[in-house]
């Protein structure tokens, strides 16, 4: 690896360790209620193999049920369940109303809970939680691998998963610049200092070190505490140019231009005044308490020639870095991608319209530009037709929630993906959508409030992210093995392994 940093670089061990929920009461999909009739006989402790009921030695009473471990009706309806076996009939089970408050059609409650479970354990979530797709009724949620559909493909014995490669090279230009190699086809999206807490930023960077991947600064500047991780940081140059200096461009291996963001295409960044604390304002060289808008578009770019000048500028300032171009998904996104290639970009990063954000007008999140599912095949096919597909890395983001979304995005034609919200969820986000105003995230993830950010330690957050990536990689390898592939790179553009769900049974074409 070619390091450009002048700072001693830290290492982080890639090791799965339990990182349970940081709140006192973990949330489960189901809820077990124990009535006053309980005689603390301990029968439930004996029959439950999932650890829901606990009665430590020497305790007279059974502890409050650990209902996050309960797998629900599948077990409760069996005669050997705790409910059936309780001599006092003191136990009842139901869906947990609180966990039903979490999430939405895109990020269903199950997806959040299963992400938490993966981040806690480092392995796949149990089957009672739907961990593959949400309930949005379209896009990735209407797509399956053929092997997931009963009787569509004959099951084959799972081949060995030992030597399956999930790594990716990001430089395909053959232009003499160094290679950037990542061990998983996933890296972290730009989240600025200001939109998220310094603990969140550091945890993302440390997890990127552990997984030999990258994280991105967003456009809030480059905090000093990020310097020990320079080799795994992408400096974002966005339209506000907040915190962009020669030094921050020179110390990293990849520089990303953010032309547009999927959640607010054509609108530029937006940090509401409440979150612009003195520390954030100092970093951005702005006045604390003022809302900060990044202008849109780059005032210096009005043509593809200007775009090339932009890229040349960065390449001149840092002769060893790779350049990524992050764009949104308009109707002509394929042309934009080709233009970026000819302007000299190493990575074209498409950010679909359903992606995450710290703050965006609701009208923009839903209505402007196309979801990433449509953009990937459009761009991939066009790059292939232009004969330049092998010379550029295509990265997709904006609504990649699960490892199955990652795999589907790659099968549609992307080389790899960028994730954002999935990492926030791993840190305990419930998607209450209150990141933007007041003191920011009530759970201390997307907040700059000095008190709120203390809810989460960097060590715990790092471990959660390392665990989530491990769980994802394990599942990725399983799927690749199931598809008979030995590398994630073989999956790119293989739409033949996918199928699309139709509402009309008559439309079925195998």
């Amino acid at each position, binding site marked *: 690896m070619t390091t450009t940093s002048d700072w001693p670089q830290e290492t982080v061990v890639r090791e799965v360790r339990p990182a349970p929920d940081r709140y006192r009461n973990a949330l489960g999909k189901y809820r077990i209620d124990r009535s006053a009739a309980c005689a603390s006989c301990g029968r439930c402790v004996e029959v439950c193999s999932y650890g829901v009921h606990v009665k430590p030695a020497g305790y007279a009473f059974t502890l409050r049920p650990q209902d996050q471990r309960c797998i629900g009706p599948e077990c409760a309806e069996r005669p050997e369940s705790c409910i059936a076996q309780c001599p006092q009939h003191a136990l009842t089970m139901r869906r947990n109303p609180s966990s039903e408050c979490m999430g939405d059609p*895109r990020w269903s409650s199950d997806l959040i809970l299963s992400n938490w479970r993966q981040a806690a354990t480092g392995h796949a979530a149990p089957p009672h939680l739907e961990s593959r797709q949400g309930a949005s009724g379209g896009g990735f949620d209407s797509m399956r691998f053929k092997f997931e559909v009963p009787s569509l493909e004959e099951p084959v014995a799972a081949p060995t998963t030992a030597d399956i490669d999930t790594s990716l090279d990001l430089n395909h230009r053959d232009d003499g610049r160094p290679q950037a190699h990542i061990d998983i086809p996933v890296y972290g999206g730009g989240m600025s200092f200001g939109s998220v807490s310094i603990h969140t930023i550091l945890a993302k960077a440390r997890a990127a070190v552990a997984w030999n991947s990258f994280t991105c600064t967003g456009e809030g500047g480059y905090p000093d505490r990020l310097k020990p991780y320079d080799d795994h940081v992408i400096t974002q140059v966005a339209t506000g140019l907040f915190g962009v200096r020669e030094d921050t461009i020179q110390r990293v291996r990849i520089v990303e231009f953010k032309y547009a963001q999927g959640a607010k295409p054509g609108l530029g960044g937006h940090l509401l005044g409440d979150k612009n604390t003195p520390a954030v304002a100092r970093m951005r060289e702005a006045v604390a308490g003022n809302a900060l808008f990044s202008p849109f*578009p780059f005032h210096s770019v009005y043509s593809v020639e200007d775009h090339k000048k932009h890229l040349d500028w960065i390449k001149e300032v840092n002769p060893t870095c790779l350049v990524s171009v992050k764009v949104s998904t308009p109707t002509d996104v394929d042309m934009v991608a080709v233009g970026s290639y000819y302007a000299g970009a190493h990575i074209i990063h498409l950010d679909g319209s359903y992606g995450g954000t710290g703050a965006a007008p609701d009208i923009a999140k*839903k209505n402007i530009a196309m979801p990433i599912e449509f953009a990937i095949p459009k761009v991939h096919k066009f790059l292939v037709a232009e004969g330049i597909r092998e010379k550029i890395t295509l990265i997709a983001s904006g609504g990649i929630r699960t490892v199955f979304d990652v795999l589907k995005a790659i099968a549609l034609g992307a080389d790899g993906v960028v994730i954002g919200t999935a990492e926030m969820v791993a840190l305990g986000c419930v998607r209450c959508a209150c*990141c933007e105003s007041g003191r920011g995230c009530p759970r201390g993830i997307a907040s700059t409030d000095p008190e709120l950010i203390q809810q989460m330690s960097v060590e715990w957050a790092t471990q959660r992210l390392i665990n989530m990536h491990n769980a994802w990689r394990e599942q990725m390898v399983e799927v690749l093995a199931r598809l008979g592939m030995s590398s994630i790179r073989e999956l790119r553009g293989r739409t033949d392994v996918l199928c699309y769900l*139709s509402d009309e049974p008559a439309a079925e074409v195998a």
Partner: protein
Amino acid sequence: MPDRYHIHTVPTPPRFRRIGKFGNIDWREDCSRCTNCVKLRCLYDVYRHEAAYNRDPAAPLDTWDECKACLSCVQGCTKGLLSVSVNPEFLDLGDEYWKPDILLTTWNQSDTGKIPVSGAGYRGRFHGPGFDSIWTDMSEIVRPTRDGIHGREYISTSVDIGPKPLRLRFTPDGRMLTPPSRLLEIQLPAILDMPSWQVEGGDLGKARAAAAQELKTLAVMPAAEATPEAHIVPLLGRDDIAQSHEILKAVRMVQIEDGPEVLELAGKALDVNPQVILSVRLPLGPAAAGRILDLAGERIKVFHLCTDLHGRERLANGRPGRHIKDALREVHGRLVKEGIRDEVTLIVAGGIALAEHMAKAIICGADLVAVDTALLVALGCRVCRHARGTGASCDSCPAEIGSADGEYAAQRIVNLMGAWHSQLIEVLGAMGIREVRRLRGEVGRAMFLEDIEKEAFGDLCRVSRQRVSA
């Protein structure tokens, strides 16, 4: 240069406590009265405000006080006593089109007049019927700049209503033969229409008129309620013309329901005020394009196309038909083909519930939209079954809309339209379009589900959804 169009919004809080999305419920007993109570640490102070409200229902309300379901209390309570649940009363609001979330965002916009902004990404379904299967385009580089669109770079939202000649004709000696065009320019591509159902009492008609005046747009009123003012569009019946000479002379546009008498009534209206713009109100449906072609030949150039509460065609058999998205594109396309699209003005009404519906209806071919039900929602209407089912008066309206003060109601409407206007500018700005007139029929700057789905997933094998959900 004339003054830029600007809508003056003023925070106008709701009169009643609204139905919240989430409810906090104490579930398990056994509170230990610990000193670390999560209720005191709630970031939004929900518990304290709840207690204050219980003591005094007239306590001031702020949407900030509502529970956001961050679940910090549920997960943090020492003994795990607390639960939060989705309020079933919230889920029961509205109907399948006027969804609870639409009502909530409309109320919020009417409170503040501001664009709804939130964190996290899009939360809804991937796509839906009607307008929810359209995405608008954006431009990566060339456009008015975002830092400019609410300031120094002006995006025009004004539209013209009235007969537009396609070309001017002159005599050999240079005198213009074409009569001067009588165009009515309004500053917002939306007029305020009569609600689908009558709300008894109060000053709602006056509020709508006052809001239209403030917004520099028009308000459609039944002739009996109309006043002789330029921003009023009276809906005239046979008997009204004789009795409404004063009004007819003052207004700039009138509406007439389509029917066998329409040309006769139009002639009578022109007799009273030859300058008045005639518009005909007719249902959007398979026959609409043909009827527009007929009437356009008879000097009527403005058409108010009505759909039902959900933006669907009203078919002759009384059943709902296609959505505006499909029906209007057909009408627009037919008029383009016949070469008269630029001569006529199309106003589409019904089912315009959100700011994006305004932009998308214009993309589908409307010159402007008419807002109706959303104006009631701005005042707190819940589109409850009582109102929807019968179309009758709302005697037992839980939001007591009928008792709203006229000035208050007008400001809520102005706020809502102000928020919509800002959102329209955001959409236009993202597309790089500097005036809304250019958006009309611009399907090339929109993506329709059926097209992009076919382009992106056309080569994927298709299987029935039932096979995986079984």
